[in-house]
C-alpha cells in the first residue's frame, strides 16, 4: 500500500512537471515567468583581450576604423576637442549602455524575483565603472512612450531565446561609442545577446543609431566569472572648476578640417588615413584594396561636409500626434502634458492648478479635461514662457475655465469687478506687449489671452501648493520675452522655446531673439540644475517640445548651439556672406538629429538666424 501511494505521488509529480513544461511558450522562447533560462547571477569581469588598449588606457584620437559611422558621426567626432571633458558639465558624464558593457571593470549580476511567486521580474547588470546599473525587465512590461526621459543605461527588456538572453534597449542618452569623441546619439537602440558557456559569457551587441551610424554596429566580447567579490564598486563624481576663467559659453571644439591631430594615430600605426576615418566599408574585406589605393590627401576630403543637400532629422518624434493629450507624471504633484504643440506643465494641489504654457490651442478642450482629471480644483495661475502661439494657444480657454479665489472679495475686486473670475496669466512684459501688438509687427491675439500679471525685472515669484515657483527672464534668447519657470521643491525647470529635443532652437530674430542670448539662456538653465549621479537625474527639465530631460540634454544642446555659433563666427571673420555660410553646411554633424528642409523652422532658417544675430546683435 505504501509502495502504491509512493508510485502515485511520483506519477502525479511527473505529470505536473510535464504539464507545467507544456505551458512554456513554444519556439524556444520563454519570457520571464517562473522559468529562467539561464542564471547569470554572480561576479563577472570583462575580458580585455580584444581592443584592450582602446577599452583600457583609452583610444587614440581619430581612430575610427571598423566603425560604420556616417558623415555626421565622423564630423561630430572630428570637431570634438577632448578638453570638453574639463567643462564642469561633462566631468561626470556617465557611460551609455552601448559603451558601458565593453568598458573596463567588473560586473555584478543578480536576479530580482517576486518574493511570493518567485517569478523573474528583472535581471540587474551592475557595472563597476560609473556605477552603471542596468535593469533588464523580464516581466513583459512595455517600453515607455517616446516623450519619457532618457538615461545613460536606457530602458531594457529581456527575453530568453534558445540559450541566449536577448535584451532590447531604448531611451538612451547621448554619449560616446569611443572615448575619443565618437558620438552615440539619443536615438540609438541596442539589441544584445548574452550566452553562457560555463563560467564564460559570450556577449553580442547590435547598436542601431540612425543619426551617427550607416548600418548597425555589431560587436562581440567575453566575460569570465569571478569566484569572489572583486570589491570597489562605487564610482562617485563631483564636478569642479578645472579651467578657471573659461567663459561659460566656450565649448572646446575644432572647426571642420582643422583637427590638429588628424593623422597622428594613422602615422604612428601605419594605417592609411582613409582607414582611420572609419565608415561602413572599413568593416569588410573589400576595404583592403581601398586602403592601398586612397591617398591621405583624398581621405582628407572626408573631414569636411560633402556638397549636396542637407540631411534632415531621423529622430523619433516624441509627440504621438494621435489627437490625444498624454500625461506624464514628473515628480511630486507636477505633470507634463504632451500632444498639443508645446509641452504643458501642470502643478496640482489644494490651492488650485498652476499651469505653465497652454499649448497650440488645437486640443485645449482635451487639455482641460486632463487637468480636471488631475485636480478638481480650479486652474488658478497660468505662466507663459513665450508669446509664441505653440505656448499660448490655449490661454483663452484655460484662463476662462479657471478662477483665482484669492482676489475675490479683496480691495482689488472692488476696483475691478470680475477679477478672480478667471485664472491669472503671468509672463514677462514683452510677452504681453507682443500679444497685444504694442511691440513688433504681430497680429494681436484675443484680449482675454493676454497676460495681466507681468514683470519687467529678472524674476517673478509665487509660492503655490507648497512649492516656490519662480520665473526667470531670459533676454534675447528665442525672443525678447522668454522666461524659464522653476519649481524649486519639485526641482523641475520648464524651458519653453529656449530648449527642445526636436529641432534647432527657434531663434526668432524678428522678435528679439539671438544666438548669444540663446546660449546664455541655456547656461542659465544649467546654473540652476543639480545632477543626481554621473551627470544625470536630479533637476528635471521640461523642453518646449520633446521628451522629458535633465541637465545632460541641455548641456549637449548648449554645446551644439555654441559650436555652430563658433563655425558661423569664424566664417564671418573670414568675410563670408550669408550665402557662403549657408553653403558651408555648418550644421552637417547635427542635421540628422535636428535638421529640416521644410516646415516652420528649417536648418536654413536657423543658420540664417545665427548669422544675422551675430552680424547685428540685438540692442546694438
Amino acid at each position, binding site marked *: 500500500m505504501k509502495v502504491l501511494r*509512493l508510485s502515485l*505521488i*511520483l506519477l502525479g*509529480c*511527473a505529470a*505536473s*512537471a*510535464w504539464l*507545467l*513544461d507544456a505551458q*512554456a511558450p*513554444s519556439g*524556444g*522562447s*520563454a519570457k520571464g515567468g517562473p*522559468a*529562467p*533560462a*539561464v*542564471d547569470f547571477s554572480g561576479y563577472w569581469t570583462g575580458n*580585455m*583581450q*580584444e*581592443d*584592450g*588598449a582602446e577599452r583600457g588606457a583609452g583610444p587614440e584620437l581619430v581612430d575610427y*576604423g*571598423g566603425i560604420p559611422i556616417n558623415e555626421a558621426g565622423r564630423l561630430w567626432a572630428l570637431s570634438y576637442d577632448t578638453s570638453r571633458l574639463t567643462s564642469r558639465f561633462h566631468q561626470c558624464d556617465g557611460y551609455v549602455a552601448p559603451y558601458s558593457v565593453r568598458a573596463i571593470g567588473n560586473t555584478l549580476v543578480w536576479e530580482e524575483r517576486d518574493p511570493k511567486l518567485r517569478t523573474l521580474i528583472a535581471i540587474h547588470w551592475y557595472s563597476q565603472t560609473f556605477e552603471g546599473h542596468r535593469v533588464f525587465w523580464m516581466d513583459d512590461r512595455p517600453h515607455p512612450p517616446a516623450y519619457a526621459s532618457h538615461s545613460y543605461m536606457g530602458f531594457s527588456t529581456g527575453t530568453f*531565446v*534558445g*540559450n*541566449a538572453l*536577448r535584451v532590447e534597449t531604448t531611451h538612451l542618452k547621448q554619449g560616446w561609442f569611443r572615448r575619443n569623441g565618437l558620438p552615440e546619439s539619443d536615438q540609438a537602440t541596442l*539589441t544584445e*545577446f548574452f*550566452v553562457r*558557456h*560555463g563560467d*564564460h559569457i*559570450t556577449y*553580442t551587441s*547590435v547598436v542601431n543609431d540612425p543619426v551617427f551610424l550607416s548600418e*548597425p*554596429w*555589431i*560587436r*562581440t*566580447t*567575453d566575460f*569570465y566569472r569571478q569566484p569572489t567579490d572583486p570589491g570597489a564598486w562605487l564610482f562617485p563624481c563631483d564636478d569642479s572648476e578645472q579651467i578657471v576663467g573659461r567663459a561659460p559659453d566656450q565649448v572646446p571644439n575644432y572647426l571642420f578640417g582643422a583637427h590638429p591631430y588628424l593623422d597622428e594615430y594613422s602615422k604612428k*600605426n601605419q594605417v592609411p588615413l582613409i*582607414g582611420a576615418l572609419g565608415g561602413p566599408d*572599413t*568593416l*569588410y*574585406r*573589400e*576595404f*583592403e584594396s581601398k*586602403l592601398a589605393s586612397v591617398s591621405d590627401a583624398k581621405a582628407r576630403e572626408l573631414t569636411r561636409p560633402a556638397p549636396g543637400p542637407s540631411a534632415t532629422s531621423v529622430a523619433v518624434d516624441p509627440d504621438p500626434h494621435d489627437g490625444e493629450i498624454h500625461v506624464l507624471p514628473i515628480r511630486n504633484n507636477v505633470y507634463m502634458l504632451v500632444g498639443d504643440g508645446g509641452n504643458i506643465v501642470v502643478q496640482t494641489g489644494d490651492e488650485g492648478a498652476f499651469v505653465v504654457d497652454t499649448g497650440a490651442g488645437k486640443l485645449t478642450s482635451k487639455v482641460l479635461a486632463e487637468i480636471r482629471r488631475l485636480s478638481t480644483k480650479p486652474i488658478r495661475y497660468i505662466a507663459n514662457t513665450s508669446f509664441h502661439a505653440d505656448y499660448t494657444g490655449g490661454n483663452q480657454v484655460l484662463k476662462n475655465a479657471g478662477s483665482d479665489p484669492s482676489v475675490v472679495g479683496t480691495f482689488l475686486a472692488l476696483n475691478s469687478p470680475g477679477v478672480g473670475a478667471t485664472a491669472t496669466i503671468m509672463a514677462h512684459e514683452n510677452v504681453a506687449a507682443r500679444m497685444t501688438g504694442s511691440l513688433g509687427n504681430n497680429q494681436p491675439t484675443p484680449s482675454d489671452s493676454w497676460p495681466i500679471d507681468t514683470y519687467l525685472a529678472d524674476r517673478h515669484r509665487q509660492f503655490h501648493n507648497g512649492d516656490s515657483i519662480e520665473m526667470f527672464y531670459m533676454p534675447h534668447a528665442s525672443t525678447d520675452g522668454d522666461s524659464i519657470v522653476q519649481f524649486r521643491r519639485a526641482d523641475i525647470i520648464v524651458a519653453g522655446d529656449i530648449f527642445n529635443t526636436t529641432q534647432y532652437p527657434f531663434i526668432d530674430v524678428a522678435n528679439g531673439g539671438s544666438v548669444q542670448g540663446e546660449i546664455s539662456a541655456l547656461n542659465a538653465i544649467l546654473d540652476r540644475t543639480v545632477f543626481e549621479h554621473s551627470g544625470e537625474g536630479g533637476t528635471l527639465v521640461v523642453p518646449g517640445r520633446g521628451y522629458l530631460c535633465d541637465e545632460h540634454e541641455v548641456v549637449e544642446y548648449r554645446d551644439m548651439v555654441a559650436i555652430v555659433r563658433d563655425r558661423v563666427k569664424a566664417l564671418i571673420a573670414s568675410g563670408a556672406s550669408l550665402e557662403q555660410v549657408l553653403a558651408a553646411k555648418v550644421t552637417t554633424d547635427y542635421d540628422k538629429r535636428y535638421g529640416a528642409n521644410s516646415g516652420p523652422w528649417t536648418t536654413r532658417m536657423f543658420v540664417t538666424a545665427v548669422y544675422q544675430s551675430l552680424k547685428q546683435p540685438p540692442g546694438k
Partner: protein
Amino acid sequence: MRVAKSSSGMILLALASVLHAQPPAAGPGGGRGGPGRAGPAAALFDPTGYWVAQITEDWKERIHPAAKGDVGSIPVSAAGRREAAAWDPASSNSCKAYGVGGILRMPGRLHINWEGNNLKIESDAGAQTRVLSFGTPSGQAGGLQGVSVASWDHLAPALTGFTLRGRGGGGGGSLKVVTTQASPGYLARNGVPYGAKATFTEYYDRQEVPGGPALLVVSVEVTDPDYLNGPYWYSVHFKKQADAAGWNPQPCDAR
C-alpha cells in the same frame, strides 16, 4: 504526521522536476535527437550558408597586418614576443596566418555546409577548408586546420537553476568545436605565433536579430604552452548573406 507526509510529497515533486529538467541524452554525434540522429537532424541551429565577417574589433590588427611586434591584446609570452619580433613583413600572406588560430579573424567570408554528418567550413580568405567531425574525426589530415571534434553543447542544466518547467528557454545550445594537432601558425597576420601544442575551443552560436540578418558568433579560447601566458579568449561575428555575393577565394602564400 501530516506535515511529514507533505514534506515527502514536496521532496518527491522536486525530485521529479529535477529529473525532468535533465537534457535529452546526446547521441553518438552529440546531437539533440539521441541515438540514431546525426548530421543536420541533430543540429541545434542551422549554421549553413554564406557568412560575411565584420571587422569591428581589433580592426587595426585584422584589416591589414599590424606593425611588426605589435601583439595587440594577445597574452603572448616572452617566447611569443621573440617569435613575433622575428616576423618578416614580406610574408604577410603566409598560409600560417590562415591556420585554425587565425582564420576566423580574417576579413572575408565563410561558406558552411553539411558534408555527410560533418560540417565543412570554407573560408575565401586564404582559400582554406576546415572539417568539423561529430564523434570520431574522419577525413582530417591535421595540418594548418588541425583536427576538429564537434558536438552540440546543450544548455547546461546547472546553469538553469531549479525550475518546474525543466529546461529553460525551450532548449537551444551551442556548437562546440575542439581543435588540436594543428601545425604552428599565426594568431595575427603580423606573425604573433601559436605552436603545435595549441588547443582551440570554439563555441558557435546563431543569433536572430530582429529586423536584420542572422549572426554567427564564435567565441574562441586558445591555450598554448609554447607562446601564450594564459588562455586567450576572443569572439568574432559573421553576418548571414542571402547568397554567395562577394565570395572570392584567394589562396594564401604557401611559402
